């Protein structure tokens, strides 16, 4: 079965510290993976997708097929990074998006 696991419900770091939000997936085919973010009082929005290999707001994520992981990383966290982060898996040619349960990141001053 296709599944996305985010093992940490809550993550708290100090401003300027590195941050890594973990995501593991279960899927036998070729996955497309995404990170979505929801800032306070805003709607859920795309942060980045693995096929773009881009850095958005200083965040990067590398797809590791061997470990079936897609961890989100940022070397120096900022207070404005505090938000709810969801990892999502899209099955190619299937169009539905499977979301993890989310990790609430708090960046303390």
């Amino acid at each position, binding site marked *: 079965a296709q599944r996305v696991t985010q093992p940490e419900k809550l993550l708290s770091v100090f401003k300027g510290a590195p941050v890594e939000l973990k995501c593991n997936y279960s899927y036998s085919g070729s996955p497309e993976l995404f990170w979505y973010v929801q800032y306070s009082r805003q709607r859920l929005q795309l942060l980045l997708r693995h096929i773009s290999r881009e850095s958005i707001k200083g965040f990067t994520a590398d797809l590791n097929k061997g470990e079936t992981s897609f961890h989100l990383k940022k070397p120096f966290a900022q207070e404005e990074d505090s938000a709810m982060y969801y990892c999502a898996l899209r099955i190619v040619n299937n169009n539905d998006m499977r979301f993890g*349960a989310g990790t609430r990141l708090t960046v303390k001053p």
Partner: protein
Amino acid sequence: DAGVTQSPTHLIKTRGQQVTLRCSPKSGHDTVSWYQQALGQGPQFIFQYYEEEERQRGNFPDRFSGHQFPNYSSELNVNALLLGDSALYLCASSLGRGANTGELFFGEGSRLTVL
């Protein structure tokens, strides 16, 4: 562009009743997906509509049904409401076949409480 709009924002129903939620997609989008988000959980895929047809369905009972209109707006209907149907219902729009980058644009949701 107002983006994805949903109505109503909040509603309260009792068990056994029926509810209809509405969604207007982002301008230029032709595909609408519905998600259920229970408290403390990530969004769960209910179904997706494209060209006025249900194209994909998640693991939800037949009590959940939908419709897409020629203007691409969509409705989610839930019959015989159960307490467990209490959740935030999210609508997301995207581009359909051939241009689907996987980016979903979400509405603010309709919070349904079943008493």
